[in-house]
């Protein structure tokens, strides 16, 4: 580009070059545009696929909800042959298994996370972290076998013991005589209590990994300050590590809860289906949404399939809410932004 120098001003000053801002073009090269278009197409494709699943589930549940209305959530029986369909007992069973599993997993996960970050010798630490990750990779069917064959024979004795001594609390009550010489063993098997063991083991590594990650980021200076002031190790943990990691503790626990709600195979292996609306975790029989789907999809007609999809959709929505809340808590406790060099 040529620039015409302006006429020199008459008073003899040196000629001024008129500087105009250069146009910096932020455009992309053709290759880049292809790249950006290409990844955008993939992103949109994935968005469509995953979004379609959610929409499909929602769409499929419309006829069921129209047919049964709110009764779908209040009815506890699932007898499609009599046109009686509802998920109240199933949802209750799902919540019971998930919450009991969480009650078992939470203290263990918290303790293990604290042990790894605070108590374990430094050279063991990475090995222990690997072990927890390995635990997360163990297939759920293996935990199911573990719960069914190894835990159940012991757990039913524990259940009987609990009923014998605490049966007056409705929560521990079982409809049988636990003190009989030949106690009814089958009343104590296949229960919520036993199903929650393998589920607890499945969700524990997840919760533990999140908690450990947050604890490891606790500021060393504050921890050392607590110790330098003469605090004990637990004092430093209580005043520095746990307050710092609060978001991670809550978030990790909720993530684990989300996983527990959807767990299928271990639960199917252990429980025996029962649609009574009851909160007696030690007693035989319960039903969860995922176990219901696994058990009923085979003989389902299209209307029943829609009902099962509705149950699945409800489960998905619950899990989604739990996971979203978890993400908020986890996100609040550490910065998720890109690392800088």
């Amino acid at each position, binding site marked *: 580009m040529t620039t015409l120098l302006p006429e020199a001003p008459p008073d003899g000053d040196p000629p001024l070059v008129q500087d105009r801002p250069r146009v910096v073009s932020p455009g992309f090269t053709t290759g*880049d545009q292809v790249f*950006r278009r290409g*990844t*955008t197409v*993939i*992103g*949109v494709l*994935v*968005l469509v696929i*995953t979004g379609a*699943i*959610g929409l*499909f589930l929602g769409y*499929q549940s419309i006829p069921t909800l129209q047919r049964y209305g709110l009764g779908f959530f209040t009815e506890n029986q699932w007898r499609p042959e009599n046109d009686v369909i509802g998920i109240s007992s199933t949802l209750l069973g799902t919540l019971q298994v998930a919450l009991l599993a969480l009650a078992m997993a939470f203290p263990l996960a*918290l*303790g293990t996370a*604290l*042990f*790894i970050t605070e*108590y*374990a010798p430094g050279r063991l630490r990475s090995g222990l972290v690997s*072990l927890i*990750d*390995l635990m997360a*990779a*163990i*297939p*759920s*069917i*293996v*935990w199911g*076998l*573990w719960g*069914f064959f*190894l835990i159940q024979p*012991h757990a039913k*004795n*524990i259940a009987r*013991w609990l009923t014998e001594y605490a049966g007056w609390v409705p929560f521990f009550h079982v409809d049988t005589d636990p003190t009989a010489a030949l106690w009814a063993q089958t009343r104590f098997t296949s229960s919520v209590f036993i199903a929650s063991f393998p589920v607890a*083991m499945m969700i524990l590594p997840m919760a533990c990994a999140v908690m450990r990650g947050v604890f490891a980021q606790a500021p060393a200076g504050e921890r050392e300050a607590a110790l330098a002031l003469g605090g*004990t190790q*637990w*004092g430093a943990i209580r005043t520095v590590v746990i307050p710092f990691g609060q978001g991670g503790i809550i978030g990790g626990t909720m993530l684990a809860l989300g996983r527990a709600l*959807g767990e*299928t*195979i271990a639960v199917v*292996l252990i429980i025996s289906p029962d649609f009574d609306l009851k909160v007696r975790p030690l007693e035989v029989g319960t039903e969860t949404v*995922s176990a219901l*789907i*696994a058990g009923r*999809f085979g003989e389902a007609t299209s209307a029943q*399939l829609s009902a099962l*999809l509705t149950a*699945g*959709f409800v*489960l*998905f929505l619950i899990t989604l809410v739990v*996971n*979203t809340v978890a*993400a908020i808590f986890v996100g609040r406790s550490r910065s998720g932004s890109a690392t800088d060099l």
Partner: protein
Amino acid sequence: MTVLSERPVRAPAEPTPPAREPRRDVRSRSVDEQLSVPGAAVSAFALVWVAFTYVLPWSGKVGFAFCWLLAFLVILTALTALTSPRPVVVNRLMSALVSAAALVVGLALASAVVYTLVRSAGSLRHLGFFTSDMSGVRPTDPLTRGGVLHAMVGSIIEIAIAVTITVPLGIGTAVFMSEVGGRLAKVVRTVVEAMTALPSIVAGLFIYTVLIIALGFNRSGFAAAMAISVMILPIIARGSDIALRIVPNGLREASLALGSSQWQTVWRVVLPTARPGLTTAVILGIARGVGETSPVLLTSGASTFLGFNPLTGAMNSLPLYVFSAVRSGQTLYIARGFGAASVLLLLVLVLFVIMRRLARQQATR
């Protein structure tokens, strides 16, 4: 060893240093600290043993272990309270509790692995278990007949299809979300993260309804691979997104400042830097996909014979084989199921070791 005794040992000719203060060992533990934990453990064991044998009408190993732990904690607290102020008591009690929690978790993990391997010893002993399928095997046939070859092959075919579909999509989406960005990318990220909440059984039910009921496909390995894909696609996309996001921005800027285009930056700088993280995400997805039973339960059917074509006819896979074998209730079938579970466990273990290797490369970089 030779001892050079003839050489005279000469004392160093330096002035004797001033009387040095003995170095204090800040890690020393008093006798009380050293002995109170084992002491409490022994006394708790003795107490509970007496209680279980003579006093209370209780029995059972699990109950014993639990009571032992409880008694140990109580005795340890009492023992510490004799000599130390309250913060020390709380500290020691909490140390014991935290260690106990870790111990319980370790025991659970070890028991699950060891129990599966021990129970599978009967079926894994026969090499035919790995080289034959279940066609024509009756429930009463001994373990020397039949095996899991068809399930192993089925698992591999299904996961191979799923990986072929999900890895380009997952990593492509991650690149879109973290490199291209924009408002659309935020929407995609939100939806992908939401779909990680999809329970695996619902993924299976979705494919079952769409592919098998509505479109009339057979129950086949392909349908199972689709269900696995639906399940692991959000996992891989999200894991890859995190792996890309921790690539330092300085690297991107340096590459762009050298004049390379965005495509070159992504292909030659960002992706190679994130490769260990991406591999971890993929392997995590594979491990999840191989081990999950519920999607294949609804979609693949369960064949008893070896088949290589995923498009026609039923196919079996390891988790499904385990599930149906255990559900059958036959003793011999349960033994086979444990054998298949061990094979599955070892497969996941191998994947896991590869993953750790790659992650360690990332750490040392």
